[in-house]
């Protein structure tokens, strides 16, 4: 394979990726998907390459997904978490990253509670950086795997109406998905109590609704988000029970939806709050397809960013 046509050295924001970039990433993903179905789930593509997963926030899915993706490509994958690193000894992000850089990694996968952390890191690094979630800013690899999952299911990414429901204010997943879906001409409506919809969201060109019941019938895809309790020091609604009543997705509310609607959730799911268990486990729920696609998309990104000849 020739030089990567992904124009950018890092995956920081969906705003940096053109429709062509995304389509190219998906073509690459398609070539890696079947690896996960093999008895020996490994190809040598990134042999001798080093991938560091630098996670300053807790994560199950994303970190494991990147680790498996790297290992299936034969890269050496190192995981660093906040509690296992010198950050817990007071080392700054800058110093942590400079020290890691000195060990010559090829790709750094970074999750951090501060918006912009991944971008800040790129200013001091030669390694390629993948943003695995920075505060409430973006989570581009999640958006890519979500787009892929939608495309798998709907055979298109254009002309759809996607509702993103819940804690929009704190959601990097929402921001990345809005940018990605708009690249393909799909419409996005963000839904939630007004106290969870950030001021200025209209500038993204999205619809806004505070009434889930009223808009659910228009949606082709419903993307449910978790209430990020850890980022609220004061609940922006009375309590979870009331939240669930107005903005949770249950079977009764689902009756109003289109017959071919599909449900997505980036995880972690708080069953019984934003989504009823019967809905999360139903056939029209793509939650586990998302997770499965996550590995393939991240294989493609690691492969493309480390620029290896096949």
């Amino acid at each position, binding site marked *: 394979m020739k030089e990567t046509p992904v124009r950018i050295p890092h995956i920081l924001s969906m705003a940096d990726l053109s429709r062509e970039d995304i389509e190219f990433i998906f073509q690459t993903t398609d070539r890696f998907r079947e690896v996960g179905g093999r008895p020996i789930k490994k190809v040598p593509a990134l042999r001798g390459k080093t991938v560091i997963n630098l996670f300053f926030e807790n994560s199950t899915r994303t970190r494991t997904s990147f680790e498996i993706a790297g290992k299936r490509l034969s890269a050496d994958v190192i995981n660093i978490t906040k509690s296992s690193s010198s950050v817990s000894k007071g080392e700054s*992000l800058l110093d942590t990253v400079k020290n890691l850089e000195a060990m010559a990694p090829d790709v750094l996968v970074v999750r951090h*509670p501060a*918006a*912009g952390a991944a971008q800040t890191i790129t200013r001091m690094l030669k390694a390629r950086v993948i943003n695995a979630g920075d505060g409430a800013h973006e989570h581009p690899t999640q958006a890519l795997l979500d787009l892929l999952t939608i495309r798998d299911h709907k055979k298109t990414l254009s002309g759809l109406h996607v509702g993103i429901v819940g804690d929009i204010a704190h959601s990097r997943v929402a*921001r990345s998905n809005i940018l990605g879906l708009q690249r393909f001409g799909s419409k996005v409506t963000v839904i939630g109590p007004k106290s969870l919809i*950030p*001021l200025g969201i209209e*500038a993204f060109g999205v619809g806004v609704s505070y009434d889930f019941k009223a808009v659910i019938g228009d949606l082709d895809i419903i993307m449910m988000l978790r209430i990020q309790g850890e980022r609220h020091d004061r609940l922006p609604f009375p309590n979870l029970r009331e939240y669930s009543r107005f903005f949770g997705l249950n079977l009764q509310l689902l009756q109003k939806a289109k017959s071919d609607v599909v449900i997505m959730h980036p995880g972690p799911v708080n069953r019984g709050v934003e989504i009823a268990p019967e809905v999360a486990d139903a056939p029209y729920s793509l939650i586990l397809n998302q997770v499965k696609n996550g590995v393939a998309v991240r294989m493609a990104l690691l492969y493309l960013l480390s620029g290896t000849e096949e």
Partner: protein
Amino acid sequence: MTQILIHNVRIIDPANGLDLLGELRIKDSKIEAIGEKLDKLPGDEAFDGKGRVLLPGFVDLHVHLREPGFEHKEDIQSGTMAAAAGGFTTVCCMANTHPVNDEAAVTHYILEQSRSKAAVKVWPIGAITVGLKGERLANIGELQEAGCVAISDDGMTVMDSQLMRLAMDYAKGFDLPVITHSVDANLCHGGTMNEGEVSCQMGLKGIPREAEDIIVARDILLSRLTGCRLHVAHVSTAGAVELIRQAKAQGLPVTGEAAPHHFTLTDEACQEYDTNAKMCPPLRTCTDREAVIQGLADGTLDCIATDHAPHAIVDKEVEFDQAAFGILGLETAFALGYRLVLDERLSLEKFILALTAKPLEVLGKTYSGLKPGAPADLCLVDLDAQWVYRTAQSSSKSRNSPFDGWQFVGRVVHTWVEGRQVYAV
């Protein structure tokens, strides 16, 4: 014995109705004479002004000199050298040092250090509350006696309205102005930049403009209740400008200041997570910036004050969320303000007043400016000089300016304090 004859200069001092091509003699620490042509006296040391503009030294009501306590960011010597480089001959330093300037001993210390180390005059501002904690009044009378020219909990807002009322009532009795840093701490709630489209897109927690407006409105009402002079620091919102305009129209003793960054930049400067664009109150929208400029032009905002806030690299080269609020301001204030003059948004006269006579008026002090017998606090500016600001060459100990690398027209080239040259480009 100093005796300098500055010739070949345009001498401007709007407050004294002065604008002439002429000469000015400094004798010892004072201005001895001003005229179109002065007789040469024995002992005159000639200084060729090369046709540049001689102005009264500027007065900055709002700086952070960081001493005592944070000398790794700035100290009285480095901060006042930066002031001199910016044409300032007097700076008022805020109380958020360590220890806080909430008692006479700290004020004495600052003045003592200034006597031996400062390049320009230093006028301390005392705290309103002990430790800036907003819990009980500092010894305001003793602070004034020790030399404080105003009181402020700058950096913190006195959130307890009753305590603020007491402070203003009490300060009124001492004829001290109260300077309000107006950000509703609850509404601000961990915000790091202006709340709006840019903060939403960047995923950063915003500070709504109303957080400022609410406190400005409250403190204006308290000024009405107490009769105390209120000065609103670093006005950043269109709403606050309008509130001050209305207060003035009602004849209330309310004044306001504009910081150069607020009349120059908007919240878009935060993009790329540039921590040198992080300050409090934050950079706002275009509408707000225009309102601040309009406020300066129509006199709603009395003066330009820099909010010079040095921070070390370790305070700024971190995640945006964690970065300290504040930027350098002393060395770029004149050039940034002069942009408004060049853009014909502000007259040269108003601009000079906002840096000279107006800040003294805010403090209730007599302005002498350029006249015989007045202290020879002067600066010489080259209005045509094109130059590039480089933080690497700053006199400050810190480097946190969003204007690093900016190309400017108009530069301070010489500064004298009481006849002593404290800066030459």
